[in-house]
């Protein structure tokens, strides 16, 4: 004991003291210590520190504070130290440039919304596409229901599931009846909707892309049902140790709905759709994830239109398999294969007694390697092949088209300065039917000074093949259409408010142009405008409000246009206001949609207006009830004019929906068990 006391007494202690600042203000709770020991302390409320160390030889001091570079100094003095810490530059892997992209799902960037939000959004009735139409940059095209982005046609927006292309992402319907997205929101954990300026990974999309990521391997079994006046659904998941198998079956029929609420149209056979989906997901190892998806839709509908007894039947099957592997040393390998097949048969398509048959098939192969080289550089490179086949038979005419689209891309993200990031990419494409190569550069420069503010400038070139029919009519010499995007994006966000302003300009080249029965690539066009989005959570507790406004001025010469004009799907002003308020187990939503008139050779339509309301009742942890009424005041919106000058309107002015979601087996509350 005596020896121990002597030893302790003999140990000399040095006191280290000083202050830690960021150059302007003291830093509170910075961790200051001697390297190689645990001797140290946290700075106090004035940034001061003082501690003792028993280390006697060379002393190296370190100070750490989150968000700042570590500070290291060999000590030549032990008191009165002044440590000035420098703010840490964001690592390239941490920065998320949000320009021109709206992200949904479990992310801290920008707007977050999960599947339930999609279901409860305004007048979406569970349709992802309808929910996305609450965002700025999208156009209200009521008779179509598809996504029209920033003055572009609906087919200029392409959908990807787990990185793989979907040839036909919509359900089919007769003319002037809105289509819906064919995927359930409950399939996905993340949805990224890019309205332009996207990187080299995505091609064959002139205006926008909609990549969606399916959920991960399920950890427990569940199954459930849902029902409404329109559709009935059953589905579930079986979880295994490192994998899960999910299935879903859905039957949609408007027979009951039409009987209860008759509409303007004369249906010879009500709209009916039978769908089946299955997913298998497996964590093959800690570093490899396998995901497969297969879905099939059979749609049937008959409508009497004047002297035509139109009958439409469509089979749509989509399947994909992807494998993502972490190769170590920062390398990630992605490989995938997808197949889309769509068969469409229409009787009385244009004249009584005619028959239209169309078969389209696409195989998409893709491989990509991603690597984070350092906190300053991140790169990815990939190659893909679209193998397309289609046949069309209509009366005496028939065609068959087969071609490949080979593409490769290289993307690099570089931190130029602590708050300045450059994302640059190049995409090379070759269409086998005309042999032409296209090299498309793209770049985004972003200034991200802090987590609240982002300013980005984007430039890029994008391409897309025309519809199969136009390629055939050109004698297979139709160049790909191209679009140049220039976008500025300014975003300011706090925990309660988000504001985004994005002016843009697009210039189209080589749009398909019909003349004398042939098709050339002589079309062109421009589209410019500004999108504004404001979201707020602070007005009243549990109230979320959004404002989306888009101004668009577009003009193009394409298809059968005889001179450049504003496309008939484009309206100059689009405004959407939404409010969502939660009171206990009830969530109420209100939405107001306005769009200015659309331009046709016959004239300009009146403005579009609709006020929608919805209510969600969390009746029980395993039961959710949802109801919505669209266009409460029953305004008859005119979407366009037929060639005879008559109005194109929806089949009904108001639309009422009520549905119930029941989990029959699930240990989680308010988690939809079927998808």
């Amino acid at each position, binding site marked *: 004991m005596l020896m121990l006391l002597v030893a302790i007494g003999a140990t000399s202690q040095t006191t280290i003291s000083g202050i830690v600042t960021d150059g302007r203000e003291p830093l509170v709770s910075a961790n200051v*210590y001697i390297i190689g020991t645990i001797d140290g302390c946290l700075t106090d409320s004035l940034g001061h520190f003082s501690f003792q160390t028993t280390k006697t030889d060379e002393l190296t001091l370190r100070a750490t504070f989150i968000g700042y570079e570590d500070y290291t100094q060999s000590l030549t003095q032990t008191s009165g130290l002044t440590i000035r810490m420098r703010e840490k530059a964001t690592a390239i892997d941490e920065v998320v440039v949000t320009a021109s992209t709206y992200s949904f799902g479990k992310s801290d960037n920008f707007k977050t919304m*999960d599947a*339930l939000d999609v279901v409860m959004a305004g007048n979406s009735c569970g349709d992802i596409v309808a929910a996305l139409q609450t965002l700025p940059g999208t156009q209200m095209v009521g008779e179509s229901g598809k996504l029209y982005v920033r003055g572009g046609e609906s087919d200029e927006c392409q959908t990807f599931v787990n990185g793989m292309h979907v040839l036909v992402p919509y359900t089919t319907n007769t003319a002037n009846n809105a289509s819906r997205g064919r995927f359930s929101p409950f399939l996905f954990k993340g949805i990224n909707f890019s309205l332009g300026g996207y990187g080299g990974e995505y091609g064959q999309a002139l205006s926008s892309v909609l990549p969606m990521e399916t959920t991960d391997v399920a950890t427990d079994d569940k199954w459930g049902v849902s029902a409404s006046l329109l559709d009935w659904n059953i589905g579930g998941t079986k979880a295994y140790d490192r994998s899960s198998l999910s299935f879903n079956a859905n039957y949609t029929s408007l027979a009951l709905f039409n009987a209860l609420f008759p509409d303007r149209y004369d249906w010879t056979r009500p709209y009916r759709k039978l769908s089946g989906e299955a997913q298998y997901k497996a964590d093959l190892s800690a570093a490899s994830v396998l995901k497969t998806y297969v879905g099939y839709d059979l749609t049937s509908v008959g409508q009497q239109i004047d002297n035509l007894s139109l009958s439409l039947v469509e089979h749509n099957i989509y399947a994909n398999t992807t494998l993502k592997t972490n190769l170590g040393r920062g390398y990630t390998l992605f490989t995938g294969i997808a197949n889309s097949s769509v068969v469409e048969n229409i009787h009385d398509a244009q004249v009584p007694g005619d028959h239209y048959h169309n078969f389209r098939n696409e195989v998409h192969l893709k491989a990509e390697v991603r690597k984070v080289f350092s906190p300053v550089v991140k790169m990815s490179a990939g190659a893909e092949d679209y193998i397309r086949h289609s046949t069309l038979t209509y009366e005496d005419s028939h065609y068959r088209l087969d071609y490949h689209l080979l593409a490769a891309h290289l993307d690099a993200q570089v931190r130029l300065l602590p708050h300045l990031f450059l994302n640059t990419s190049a995409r090379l494409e070759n269409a086998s039917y005309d042999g032409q190569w296209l090299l498309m550069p793209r770049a985004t420069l972003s200034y991200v000074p802090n987590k609240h503010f982002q300013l980005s400038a984007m430039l890029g070139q994008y391409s897309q093949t025309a519809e199969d029919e136009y390629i055939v009519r050109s004698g297979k010499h139709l160049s790909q259409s191209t679009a140049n995007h220039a976008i500025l994006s300014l975003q300011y966000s706090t925990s309660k408010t988000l504001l985004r302003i994005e002016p843009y300009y697009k210039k189209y080249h080589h749009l398909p142009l019909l003349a004398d029965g042939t098709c050339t690539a002589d079309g062109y066009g421009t589209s410019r405008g500004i999108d504004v989005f404001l979201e707020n959570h602070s007005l009243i507790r*549990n109230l979320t409000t959004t404002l989306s406004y888009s101004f668009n001025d577009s003009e193009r010469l394409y298809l059968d246009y005889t001179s450049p004009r504003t496309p008939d799907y484009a309206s100059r002003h689009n405004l959407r206001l939404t409010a969502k308020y939660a009171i206990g187990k009830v969530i109420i939503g209100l939405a107001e949609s306005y769009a200015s008139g659309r331009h046709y050779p016959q004239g300009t339509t009146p403005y579009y207006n609709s006020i929608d309301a919805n209510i969600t009742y969390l009746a029980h942890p395993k039961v959710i009830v949802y109801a919505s009424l669209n266009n409460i005041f029953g305004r008859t919106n005119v979407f366009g004019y037929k060639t005879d000058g008559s109005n194109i309107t929806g089949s009904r002015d108001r639309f009422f929906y009520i549905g119930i979601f029941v989990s029959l087996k699930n*240990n*989680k509350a308010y988690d939809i068990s079927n998808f």
Partner: protein
Amino acid sequence: MTSRIFKSCVLAIALFLMAPVSINAQQMPMQALVGQSLSKLQQDKPETILNCIAELKRIETMFPDSVQPKYLMALQSLNYAVTNPHAPQADNLLSDAAKTIDQMEQMAGADLSDVCTLRGFLYMVRIVQDPAQNGQRYYIDVMNNYEKALKLNPDNALAQQLQQKFREGMQSAMSKQ
């Protein structure tokens, strides 16, 4: 979910279940340092926890290839944040914990069950911080991570207890609505 009782229970569980982790330490010098640091937690004042986290950070710097200091540092940070969800240090500690959990996931010696437990705990703390906004967003993640942790190691006591507490907290929150 934000009740004082809930938060205290979670802290008590985490502190109690931390002991076996330190006992199983492989490196004696590190073990001694960790033990010395954790012994100060007998007084569970916020400053004491913050000082303990700071000490664990220093130990982690000394033994960068060891999982244990990272695990304890993340766990202590989450403990602090769950009991002091609106303290000025809470957000920084959560950011640091998230990065540490990501690092652990890449380490060969890390127990994936522990990693899932910590990740579930992280989401749980975010719900405690802002139940109205984060409840719906992270609820499934909390449950999935605890379930995965228990699937990988059914005897993971921390995951069992946190899952139980989370369920009780959820039931209590729903019954008040």
